[in-house]
């Protein structure tokens, strides 16, 4: 019996959820059956004085079955009724004529917390794993089992909105503070006794606040001035973040506000309708596929070569510039002792100071204690000598110059410990070519960190031709060791992320050449959900860097005897960034780039007009061009085998270069609209704007063939 039903001498029934054949209780067909039986029995129970809902699993209840949610294709009458029936059980539960207590022994997220909400009291064990919350919004959904309506009624609009819109899980102390739970007990054993004690002491506390006559929302009813102000302002604050691209938070906000303007049962129904709408949305499918299934696959090591776990005991970073200092910081943050090497003591110490400044800033924000910050910085040892023999990981992060890197690699590789791995932090140079500079290319790998390292969670690992599976595995473990998320790609110029990012920059400049107003180019990027416009971000990374990378690749072309080895079409880059650099407009650091930087902030440089050669593009074309260029490049990376999986492409595109979050990633974006529709639009863009938008049939076929395997 997967719902244990046990009545004690006082008439209190403890229902212990222990669903068959699954490690956690979830909202599925079995649950419905169990709930139906349980509710029938409870409603018929003679001498019932109270009910305790408990769990025999490690968690309280895990929420909805995401595989089932992914499979829902149409929001028809049948599905609507299904959603309504699910929440009807909870309505029956909270309308029992006896007090009902949720005994929360572990995580109660999503549907789990919604069950708890339908109880008269929520008692939680004092365990950091016993988190409560409604993370549905992060999956493009809303809590559709009464969560939106009940949380709004429980907390009031102003306190409910952050809980609903951020979807964070809250540890017991915080949940108590927020009003999401009512009581904390020290251990699991105390849960049932505490629940029963409360029932004994409060035999009449069986009516939910929202079912009482004269119920007032905490913090003000629908027509209270502060609530009306929140209703007016919250949409704007939301749109500033989502730009209207994420339906889930919009529906949640709308429903929370409007739930206060109608009866409770009407609000529950409206919630079901909104849930149905979201379940079938492209955004929900993308979020569930990428952020749940994809991220789980990635973190669980699906793309890690098999073998024992490896742990680096010491490390060295060569080059104490911004990247090197950031990498050293990332190491130190997770307890990895690191030598920070540069050509001089001053330079090395400056690098350490840079890392120290990051720690200090975090200490100031209260994210580290002063002692932790100090200990962290102490793990970084600045040096101007090759005095780190025996390091398990060496990461060279010197300037993106082939000859310099080759020299550094040759000099320092011999210092590795016997089982150590050597990483080159390059953003575009072929790892296989750099590997030739070292005596054992099997232990050599590209480790591409992103700037600013202390904030960016993704690390792109690049397997050279000779990089061994063992090295990939160790590098993968190293990246996890320092708390980052690895994706593994095969070698190519620019690998995956820099190639795609390069197309974004290039297309921004192409739009400029086509005569699009610079402000409109940046606006188009904002509208599609890119974090920063292509011109502004180019100023940030510096146009000088773009042209230096170009020069490096030219040199490489000459060495290899090829025409243009950098894979992306970069005609616009050469036509715009080249002259800009010659004019001394190198980017933000130089105080002049696409923007002028003055005391009043950033202003687009009027001189950009000189690059315009056409009448401009429509906003729709501009928006699509910025998206399609990136998606097409990602697809090419998949086709050429640079990407080893779609999931890594999706997560990499979002986390490394800010591909719009709501799409679920550059490849999921194509899949979301369907490869045929994507190709049709690509062809239109190619006809109008150039062959760089033309897709190879083979590339598209890959996406079609892979079918559902992508998730």
């Amino acid at each position, binding site marked *: 019996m997967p719902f244990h039903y046990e009545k004690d001498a006082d008439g209190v029934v403890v229902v212990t959820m222990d669903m068959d054949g699954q490690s956690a209780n979830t909202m599925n067909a079995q649950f419905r059956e169990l709930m139906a039986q349980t509710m029938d029995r409870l409603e018929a129970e003679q001498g019932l004085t109270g009910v305790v809902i408990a769990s025999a699993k490690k968690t309280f209840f895990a929420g909805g079955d995401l595989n089932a949610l992914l499979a829902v294709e149409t929001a028809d009458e049948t599905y609507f009724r299904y959603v309504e029936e699910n929440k009807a059980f909870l309505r029956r539960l909270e309308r029992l004529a006896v007090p009902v207590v949720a005994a929360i022994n572990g995580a109660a997220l999503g549907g789990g917390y919604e069950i708890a909400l339908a109880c008269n009291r929520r008692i939680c064990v004092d365990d950091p794993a016993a988190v409560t919350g409604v993370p549905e919004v992060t999956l493009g959904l809303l809590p559709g089992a009464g969560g939106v309506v009940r949380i709004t009624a429980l907390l009031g609009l102003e306190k409910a909105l952050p809980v609903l819109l951020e979807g964070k899980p809250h540890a017991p102390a915080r949940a108590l503070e927020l009003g999401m739970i009512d009581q904390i007990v020290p251990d699991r054993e105390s849960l049932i006794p505490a629940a029963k004690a409360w029932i004994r002491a409060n035999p009449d506390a069986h009516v939910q606040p929202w079912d009482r006559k004269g119920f007032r929302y905490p913090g003000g009813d629908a027509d209270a001035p502060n609530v009306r102000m929140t209703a007016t302002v*919250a949409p704007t604050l939301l749109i500033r973040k989502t730009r209207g691209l994420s339906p889930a938070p919009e529906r949640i906000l*709308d429903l929370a506000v409007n739930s206060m303007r109608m009866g409770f049962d009407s609000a529950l129904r409206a919630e079901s309708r909104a849930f149905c709408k979201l379940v079938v949305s492209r955004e929900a499918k993308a979020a569930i596929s990428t952020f749940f299934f994809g991220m789980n696959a990635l973190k669980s090591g699906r793309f890690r070569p098999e073998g024992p776990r490896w742990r680096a005991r010491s490390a060295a970073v060569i080059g104490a510039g911004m990247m090197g200092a950031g990498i050293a910081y990332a190491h130190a943050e997770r307890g990895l002792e690191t030598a920070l090497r540069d050509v001089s003591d001053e330079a090395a110490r400056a690098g350490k100071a840079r890392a120290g400044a990051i720690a200090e800033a975090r200490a100031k924000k209260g994210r580290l204690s002063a002692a932790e910050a100090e200990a962290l910085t102490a793990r970084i040892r600045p040096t101007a000598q090759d005095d780190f023999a025996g390091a398990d990981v060496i990461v060279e992060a010197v300037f993106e110059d082939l000859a310099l890197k080759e020299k550094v690699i040759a000099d320092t590789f011999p210092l590795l410990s016997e089982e150590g791995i050597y990483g080159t932090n390059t953003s575009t140079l072929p790892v296989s070519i750099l590997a030739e500079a070292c005596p054992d290319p099997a232990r050599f790998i590209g480790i591409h960190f992103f700037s600013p390292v202390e904030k960016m969670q993704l690390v792109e690992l690049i397997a050279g031709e000779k990089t061994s599976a063992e090295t990939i595995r160790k590098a993968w473990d190293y990246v996890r060791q320092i708390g980052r998320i690895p994706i593994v790609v095969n070698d190519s110029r620019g690998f995956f992320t820099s190639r795609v990012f390069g197309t974004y920059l290039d297309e921004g400049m192409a739009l400029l050449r086509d005569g699009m107003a610079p*402000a409109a180019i940046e*606006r188009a990027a904002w*509208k599609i959900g890119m974090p920063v416009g292509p011109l502004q971000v180019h100023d940030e990374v510096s146009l000088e860097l773009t042209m230096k990378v170009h020069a490096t690749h030219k040199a490489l072309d000459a060495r290899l005897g090829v025409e243009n080895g950098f894979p992306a079409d970069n005609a616009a880059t050469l036509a715009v960034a080249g002259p800009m650099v010659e004019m001394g407009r190198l980017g933000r650091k130089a105080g002049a780039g696409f923007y002028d930087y003055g005391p009043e902030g950033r202003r687009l440089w009027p001189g950009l007009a000189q690059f315009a050669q056409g009448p401009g593009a429509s906003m729709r074309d501009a928006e699509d061009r910025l998206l399609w260029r990136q998606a097409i490049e990602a697809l090419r990376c998949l086709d050429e085998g640079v990407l080893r999986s779609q999931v890594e492409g999706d997560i990499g595109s979002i986390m490394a270069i800010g591909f719009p979050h709501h799409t679920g990633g550059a490849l999921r974006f194509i899949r979301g609209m369907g490869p045929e529709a994507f190709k049709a639009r690509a062809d239109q863009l190619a006809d109008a704007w150039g062959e760089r938008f033309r897709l190879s049939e083979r590339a598209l076929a890959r996406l079609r063939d892979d079918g559902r395997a992508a998730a």
Partner: protein
Amino acid sequence: MTEAAYIYDAIRTPRSRGKADGALNEVKPIDLVVTLLREMQARHDLDTARVDDVMLGCVTPVREQGAVLPKIALQKAGWAQNVAGAQVNRFCASGLDTVNTAAAKVASGWEDLVCAGGYESMSRVPMGSDGGPFAEDPETNIRTGFVPQGVGADLIATIEGFDRDAVDAFAMRSQKLAAHARDSGWFDRSVVPVRDENGLVILERDDFIKPDTDMQKLGALKPSFAGPGAMGYDLIALAKYPEVERIEHVHTPGNSSGIVDGASLVMIGNERAGRDLGLTPRGRVVSVALTATEPTIMLTGPGPAAKKALAKAGLGMDDIDLVEINEAFASVALKLQRDLDVPDEKLNVVGGAIAMGHPLGATGGCLVSTMLDELERRRLKRALICMCVGGGMGIATIIERV
């Protein structure tokens, strides 16, 4: 048109600061209306039973301004039982809309004598008290891209290149012209003092005008909409105006219409009604127009509405002697001036809402009275009155002296 729609009279209360320290704050909204109804009756010894309808504009018709206040005011003012009353809301056009509708009713021949105008006690029922889905329903707010009007006014200024000096200079002009007109007694015919129950004067003349304003004082004021803009409204507006890099927030309380309390009443009828009652027409309504334009920038409707009214009347700008554009914001007036190529000497010749205030629902009626007064004083023929309106609407009315 089967009948001429004559304007027999147009009166208004003085306007005063629409906050707790304003002179009219102590006056109930209904009593602003009752004051004018009684004055209209007394001034013309009017047989009120001949009035078919009294429609008054109010933009915030809730609480003490709500529940069809005009009908109740008729009872309170002692007008004949058979007179009907209605409350009309078309945002800031409410007052002028009642004038236009009254003219249309008369012109159609279906009614003979109709009163129009409006009322707004902004000090007692603040702007926005009525809520509504545009702002307060999140889904609607998001779908329609809700942006406060001031951000739209700033966007107009940005696009048209009206810098802070230009809008402040326009505000200065409004103050100087309004002060001069008031002090010269040019408003005296139309402005009806508001009295207490003892007959003591509470407010006799407009007291919102600031004749001692100068560019320095105006320049010291903080932009009103920089804050809301930064909160996200700028981004929402710019999504529709992608070529604009940023919105220059130039509007302040000094160069935007004042928040005031006030009411207006306009009597419109056909020739026979006037003859029967011994009324002399002061003017007639020549043509009217309503339109709507892009709702995010919201305030560019006056130009298109004015052109529509001109076309309807078969007139050109040369046929217009005076132009009155409601000074909701300086940029709105400057944009209208540019749209219609209005020479300075014809534009808002006695100042406008920046100086005197904009009692939302009442303003349209106020503008009719100032224009009639000026046409008479200057012995001119035609005036074009236009206003920007929430939701991107525009309204215009052409009147002529008879």
